[in-house]
């Protein structure tokens, strides 16, 4: 990757700004046969919890206009299996691993962070305090600045990894949450997670998803994501990784220009599992043509 794609995020610098979003790329190893996963800016792995989780009652996905809902419920193999079975392969492949973690209590977030601190080959820790798909937990940390600040502080104390905190669009005031996590010691803000939606199956006269509601992702989410990023950028000085509906170079440029230091690509991976590498190459060409580096365009659409 060319130098102009470098994406500095405080202590961490990514080789290129395209990171695959948590939950949409598994543990990345599944794609290694046909995607050069080491060249990805990074991979935020499927949200990891202390214990394995089976996930929610199906159906778990439904399509919406230019988007989709998911109510996976954080089905995952748990930290033990991940560290034991998956990490060696990720190290071997040379993937820039962002450990996306999920818990329903501060103690569990802290415990996860502690256990990841020793693990070789983790580039950053990402706290998912914004998952809408788990009863009694997850998102409630993301909807108020106070709760978000608390969990961030607690984790900050026990981790030496670059700390990313992932915000929810359902926060009453997302800027307040952003300021709180910055103050509590987050190195990077990632935003946004999905926003809850519902599809009714009018033939069966009931909600389509087993869980009734699911998080909406994909292009339909993009205008919200860009707006929130634009607002948050004005209120914090730590770098922000933007996401929500990115599926083309122009989509990613919207995020960079609104203020994203890097981006995550989620739902678009389903249609094209190597899309992030294609976008990195396209961005490289776009920047080269204009004799710019990525860092020249971050936030240029702000006043």
């Amino acid at each position: 990757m060319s130098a102009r794609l470098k994406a500095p995020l405080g202590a961490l610098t990514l080789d290129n700004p395209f990171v695959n979003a948590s939950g949409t790329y598994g543990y990345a190893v599944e794609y290694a046969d046909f995607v050069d996963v080491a060249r990805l800016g990074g991979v935020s792995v499927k949200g990891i919890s202390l214990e394995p989780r089976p996930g929610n009652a199906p159906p778990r996905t439904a399509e919406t206009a230019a988007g989709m809902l998911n109510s996976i419920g954080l089905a995952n193999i748990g930290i033990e299996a991940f560290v034991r079975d998956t990490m060696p392969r990720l190290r071997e492949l040379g993937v820039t691993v962002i450990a996306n973690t999920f818990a329903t209590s501060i103690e569990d977030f802290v415990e996860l962070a502690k256990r990841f601190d020793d693990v070789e080959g983790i580039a950053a820790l990402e706290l998912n305090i914004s998952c809408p798909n788990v009863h009694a937990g997850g998102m409630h940390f993301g909807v108020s600045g106070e709760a978000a600040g608390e969990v961030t502080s607690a984790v900050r104390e026990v981790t030496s990894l670059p700390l990313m905190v992932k915000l929810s669009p359902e926060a009453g005031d997302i800027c307040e949450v952003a300021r709180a996590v910055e103050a509590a010691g987050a190195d990077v803000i990632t935003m946004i997670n999905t926003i809850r939606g519902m599809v009714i199956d009018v033939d069966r006269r009931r909600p389509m998803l087993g869980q009734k509601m699911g998080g909406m992702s994909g292009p339909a989410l993009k205008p919200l994501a860009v707006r929130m990023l634009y607002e948050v950028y004005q209120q914090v000085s730590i770098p922000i990784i933007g996401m929500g509906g990115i599926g083309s170079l122009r989509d990613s440029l919207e995020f960079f220009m609104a203020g994203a230091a890097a981006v995550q690509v989620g739902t678009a991976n389903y249609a094209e599992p190597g899309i992030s590498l294609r976008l990195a190459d396209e961005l490289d060409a776009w920047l080269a043509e204009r004799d710019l580096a990525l860092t020249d365009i971050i936030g240029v659409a702000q006043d």
Partner: protein
Amino acid sequence: MKYLRTRITEVLTPAPNYKLLRFAGDEPIPARPGEFVMVRGEWGVHPVLPRAFSLVECGEFGSIIVKPIGEGTELLAGMEVGDVLTVFGPLGKGYDMDNAGRRPILVAGGVGVAPLLYLAREFHDAGTRSVFIYGGRTEDDLPLSEEIAEVADLVVTTENGARGEKGRVTAPLTRLLEEDNNAIVYSCGPDGMLHAVSDASQAVGVPCQLALEAPMACGMGTCKGCAVMGTDGTYKYVCYDGPVFEAADIFEAAS
């Protein structure tokens, strides 16, 4: 596993409401019967997800059969020669062709014909004669039956009796299993049919492999979207643990 940008090379209409799309990319996608691909056209932001299709053939050309039932399948059914189709696969676990000397009975309904025609051809090429029970509501729901007749003993049923035996696939299946239970059943089709086929097979202790469907996003085990509850009380993933399952792993035997 490959992700290919292919082009449509041929569009056929094997029955009034079915399209067969043949496509070719730079390389073939080698797949076994029952394995599938995720495909998508270049139609912009909606619908976002690719769609799952069983391969009817693979090699220089791949082909899928599409029955329009919603937006994605309608867009695909409207595609023309030269259009770009992105194809991602092969995915999943197909049929296990090791029949251990048992007579293969293939039972298909609707687009379930896709993997089973492929399977019938493979049995035929391997010198194994199979029976192919093919059910439709009317005679218009039996695409590719001529092709089937070339490689297997075809038994047709239609609900309205317009062609073959009047009724559903379960009648001839039960009859055949009663005649000779040294058989193995392979099926693909609507949910109700799969249940009936599973019941009929499990009732006489005949092994039975079913291809399931579920809404999918990734198609390769990573999104955890396509869960179905197994008889052992754990979730199975249709795209990864399946789409072909042992009937007994998914459906309780009828009591």
